[in-house]
C-alpha cells in the first residue's frame, strides 16, 4: 500500500526564542516490509544548520539549530512510503518462549547480539517483578512465543484504558502499570516492560496508522495521528510487530518511522530553546493512501 504522510509540528512561544537546537526523528526509515520513495523535512524559519545522520538504531535523525529570533517554529515531514502486509507467521516458528530466552542469553549470532540491546531497562522503562508476574499469565511454561505475545497484546488492550489525560510523554512505565491507563506510547511501554521482565527482547516502534473512516464518510485529513507499538524478537521471524492499542499484529496500515529501546530514543521532535517562556504545540498528521488516480 502506498501512502503520502505529512507530520507537521508547530511551536508557538509566548516570547521570542533567541536560539534553539532540536533533534528530530520525523522521517520514516526503510524496513523489510516498508520502502521509502521520498522523504523530506521542511522548516520555518530556516535553520542555520541541519545535519542528517543515521542514528545507532538505523533511524534517520536530523539535528538542526535555529539562530534567529523566532516566535513560531514549524517543522513538517513529508514522505511517500509503500508498506507490505504483516508477515504470516509459520506455526513452526512458535517455539517455547523459554528457548528464546536461552538463545538471547547466549547471543552468539549477529541477530541475537543485536536483539540483546533490547533485553535491558532503558530510560523510560524499568521492568519490575510485578510486570513479569503480569506477563507470565500469557507466557505459561512451554507456550509458543508468538501466541503468548499475541495473548499479551490482547490483555494489555483489554486491561489498560485508553486515556489521553492521565500521562505525558515522559511518564515512567511503573506509573502506567499502576493506573492501568494511558495512550499508545504507554501501552507499548507496558508490553515492552512485561516482556523484558521475563528476559525477552522487545523494542519500541514509532510511526503512523491509517485510521479507517467511518462507513460512508470521507476521510478526515488531520484526524490521523502519530502512533506507537512494540516489536518482539523471535528466532526465525526476527522482529514481529504488535499493536496493543488496536489489539492486532501491525501490518500494511502501520507506517514505521523509527525504533529504539523506548520513546526517549525516538522522540519525534525534541529540543532545547533559549528564551521563549511558555509555549503551545500543535501537531497534525495526515496519512493519505495514494491511489492509482492521484499518484
Amino acid at each position, binding site marked *: 500500500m502506498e501512502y503520502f504522510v505529512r507530520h507537521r509540528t508547530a511551536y508557538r512561544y509566548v516570547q521570542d526564542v533567541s536560539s534553539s537546537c532540536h533533534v528530530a526523528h520525523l522521517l520514516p526509515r526503510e524496513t523489510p516490509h516498508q520502502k521509502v520513495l521520498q522523504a523530506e523535512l521542511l522548516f520555518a524559519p530556516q535553520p542555520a544548520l541541519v545535519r542528517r545522520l543515521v542514528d545507532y538504531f538505523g533511524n534517520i535523525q536530523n539535528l538542526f539549530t535555529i539562530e534567529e529570533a523566532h516566535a513560531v517554529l514549524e517543522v513538517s515531514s513529508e514522505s511517500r512510503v509503500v508498506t507490505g502486509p504483516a508477515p504470516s507467521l509459520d506455526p513452526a516458528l512458535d517455539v517455547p518462549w523459554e528457548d528464546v530466552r536461552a538463545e538471547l542469553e547466549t547471543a552468539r549470532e549477529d541477530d541475537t547480539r543485536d536483539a540483546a540491546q533490547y533485553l535491558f531497562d532503558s530510560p523510560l522503562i524499568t*521492568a519490575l517483578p510485578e510486570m513479569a508476574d503480569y506477563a507470565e499469565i500469557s507466557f505459561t511454561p512451554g507456550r509458543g512465543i508468538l501466541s503468548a505475545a499475541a495473548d499479551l497484546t490482547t490483555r494489555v488492550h483489554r486491561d489498560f484504558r485508553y486515556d489521553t489525560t492521565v500521562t505525558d510523554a515522559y511518564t515512567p512505565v511503573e506509573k502506567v502499570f499502576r493506573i492501568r491507563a494511558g495512550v499508545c506510547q504507554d501501552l507499548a511501554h507496558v508490553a515492552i516492560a512485561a516482556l523484558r521482565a521475563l528476559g525477552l527482547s522487545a523494542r519500541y516502534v514509532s510511526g503512523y496508522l491509517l485510521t479507517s473512516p467511518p462507513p460512508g464518510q470521507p476521510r478526515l485529513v488531520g484526524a490521523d*495521528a502519530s502512533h506507537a507499538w512494540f516489536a518482539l524478537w523471535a528466532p526465525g521471524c526476527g522482529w514481529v510487530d504488535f499493536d496493543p492499542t488496536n489489539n492486532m499484529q501491525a501490518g500494511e496500515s502501520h507506517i514505521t518511522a523509527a525504533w529504539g529501546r523506548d520513546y526517549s530514543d525516538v522522540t519525534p521532535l525534541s529540543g532545547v530553546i533559549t528564551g521563549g517562556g511558555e509555549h503551545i504545540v500543535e501537531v497534525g498528521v495526515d496519512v493519505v493512501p495514494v491511489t492509482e488516480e492521484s499518484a
Partner: protein
Amino acid sequence: MSSEKKPVERRQRGYDELRDESGEVREAWKPLAEAVVKMSPAEYARRHDVAQRLLSDNGVTYNVYDENEGHARRWRLDILPFVLAPEEWAKIEAGVIQRARLANALAADIYGPQRLIMEGYLPPHIVYGHPQFLRPLVGFEPPGGVFVHSYSVDLARVADGSWKVMASRADAVSGIGYALENRIVVGQVFADLFADMRVQRLAEFFQAHREAVQSLAGQGRAVLLSPGPHNEAYFEHAFLAHYLDLTLVEGDDLVVHDDRVYLKTLRGLDQVAVIFRRVDSDFCDPLELRGDSALGVPGLLQAVRAKNVVLANALGGSVVESPALDAYMHGAAEALLGEELLIPDIPTIWCGTEWGREEALSRLEHGILRGAFDSRPLFSRRSSAKLGRDLTPAETIALKARLERRGATLVTQDIVPPGDAPIFADGTFTTKPVTVRVFAAWTKNGYQIMPGGLARVSDDDSIKSLSLQSGALSKDVWIPTTGPVSTFSLLRQTKEDVAVQRTGNSPPSRAMDNLFWLGRYSERADNLGRTLRTIVQRRGEGGDGAMQSFLCDFLQAVVPAKLPRNDAQWLLTTLRALIADRAAPDSLPQLLSRVRRTAWSARDRLSLETWQTIYLMTEPDMLPSSGQIFGSAEALTCLDRLVRHSAAFAGHCAENMTRGPNWLFTDLGRRIERSLHLAWLVGQITASAALSESERLRIALEISSSVMTYRSRYLNAYHLAPLLDLLLLDDSNPRSVAFQLAAAERSLEELERITPKGQGTAAVLYARALRKTTEQEGILAEIADSPTALSAHLERLSAGVAGLSDAITDAYFRHAIRHRTGGEKRED
C-alpha cells in the same frame, strides 16, 4: 536486617598494615610510628586540632550544601598518614598504570570495532545493557585516541598481602582535590617527618597531565566543568580549577555555535578548547543524551564529534566501570594488551549464564549480590549491593526469580575484607579497615600515577562503611623514597617569560552575577545586624511606653506583622525569631546562609582569606540556636560580632581585591543594597511619631554608623535637615546614598571601559541620571520642609536604585533561560 536476627558480625581481621606477623612494626612505618609514640598525647592532640582548623579555615567540605544544617559537611581527615613502602608502591604503580591503559583500550574497543564482543571475549549484554553505553558516540574516536585521561582505582589489600581492585573510575574521576588538600594539611602538621622520610611529592604529576591534554586541542581556553555548588564535591572542583589554572564553569556558562563550544564571559563569547569534566557523561548534553539534565550543554556532542573540543575524560567512560565487566577483565587484558592482569578485581561472576546463576546461588550465604551495571561504591547510599546473608526469605525468593528471568542484570562478588590501617589515639595504635584510592593520568609519556592517594578508613569494623558518602575518615598516603624528592610545585613560576598584564581572562558572566549578589546579601546581613542591634539595645535600656511603641513600629517595618502589635511580648518573640530562627523568612540566620551559599558558588573567585572572612561572618553557631533561651546581653554580643566580621569582609574587599570585575561587581552589589537600606531607614525614622524627633534621628545615625560625623559637625543638636544631608546627599559620607550612587557610577564606567563597546552604556547613563537626583538645586530644603516631598523623594530613590540593579542585570548577566521542548503531545 532485623536487630534480633543475628548479632552484628565482626569482620574477620585483615592484613595488618602496621605490623608484620611477629608483631614488629614494618620497616616503612618505623620512622612515623616511633615519632608519634614519642610524642606526648597533648602534642599529638594539638597537631590534630591544627589540622582540623586548617581544614575548616580552607573550607574543605564534602557533601551537598545542606539547607537545613546551614553548612556543608566537613571533610574528615585522620592526620596519621598511611605509609606504603617504595617496593610495594612500585607494584601498585605498575598495576594501576596497566589498568588505566586497559580502561582506555576497552573504551576504544567498545565505542569502536567491538572486537571483544565479536570474538567472544565479552558477552554483548555487558556493553549493550549498560545504561551509560552512549549510543550517539559509537564510532567516534576522540583526539589522540585518548578516551580516559584520568583514572582511579580503589584498592584493598587482602590477607595474603596482595591487592585487589574494589572499584574503578574512568568517567568523572573524583578525589584528587581532596588528596591534595590532605597533603597540604598533613604535610604542614608533620613537616619534619615529611622531610625526614623523603616522601614523594604530588604536584609534578599534574603539570604534565594538563599540558598533555591541552596539546590534544586547538587554540582556546581550558575550563573545568562542574555540576555546580550543590554537588557534593564542589570544593574539589573549585580547588582543582584554581590549582590547574582552569576557569570553573557550569553547563549554563557554555554555549555551542557552529559545532564549537564557547564560554559566556563578561566580554562576550570566548572559545573553549578543553573541558576537564566533572559532570557525568550522560548529563553532558540534554539534546542527545539525558533530556532532563540541567547540567549539560545542548549541542555538545556535535562539537565533540566535529573534534572542535577535547573532553577529559571523553564521554561514555562509565561503561568500563561496571561490576559485570570486572568478571571479564583477565580476558580483556589478554586480548587487548596481550598482558596478564597485574592487579585483579575482587572475584566477580556475572549471572547472565547458567553457570553464573548456579554460582550465585551456591555462594548466597557468603557473597554480595549487586546490579550488574551499578558501579556506585559498595554499600554507599544508593548502592544496589546486598549481602546474601542479610536477605529475608521473601527477598531470597524474589532474588531467585530475578536470577531466573533476568540474571544478566546481576553479578555476585566475594566479600573481601580489606587490610587494617593504624589509627593513633591516646598513645596507642588501634586498627580500622582501609581502602586506598590511587590516581593515574594520561601524559605524553603514557599514564603516570600520582605518588600518593586517598586512603579511607572505616569508623567501625563493618565492611559496609567504606564509601566516601558514608562519611569515612580519610588519610594522606605517604610513599617514602630512597631517591631524590622532587621539589616541584605548581605554584612556582614556569620558565617561560610571562608577559606583564593587568587583566585576567574574561570571567564567566555567571560568576559575576554571584559576586554581585554576594555584595548585596552581605550588605543586607550587615544592615539587618545593625538595625537589630540598635533595637535590642534600646529595648534593654527600658524607658517609657513611647520607646516601646516606636520599636514595635520599627520592627514591623523589618518584618511586616499580620496584625500591628504593640506589646513587650511581641517585641521579644519577634526579635528572637529574627536573630535565631533558622526557619523564619528573612531572619538573620537565613540571610547569612544565603551569603555563604552565594560565596560558595563563587568560591573559585575568592581568595582563601576572603573566603575565611565570609566563613567567620556566616558561621551558623555564631548566632544562638532556635531553641536556646538567650537574653539581651547574648544577643548584643552576637550582633556585635556579626557587625565586626562583616566589617572585616568589607575591609578585605576594599584592601585586598584588585579593582577588576570581581571587585567591581561585589562592590556594585554592596552600593545598591546600602542605598536601598538608607532610603528605607530614613523613611521609617521620619514616618514614625511615637518618639521625639531627636531620639529618632539618633537611632538612624547609630544604625548608619554616622554618629561621629554628625556630632563633629552639629554637636548634640539633632535636626532633620542636617540628618537628611548627611545620609542622603553628602557624597563625602561613605554611609550616604549620594556616596553609594557616585561609587556605583564609577564602577559602571570602569565596566563599560573593559567590556565590548555599547554593552554597558545604558547602565552608566542610568546610574549617572540617578546620582544627579541627589545634586538637584534646592533639594535639601524641599525634602526637609515637606514630609510629602521627602516620602516622594525616597520612593523615587528606591525605585531608581531597584531600576539600577535591573540595568546592571540587563547589561551583564542576562542569562537566557533554557527550556526543554518535545513530546508534549501524543495522540493515537
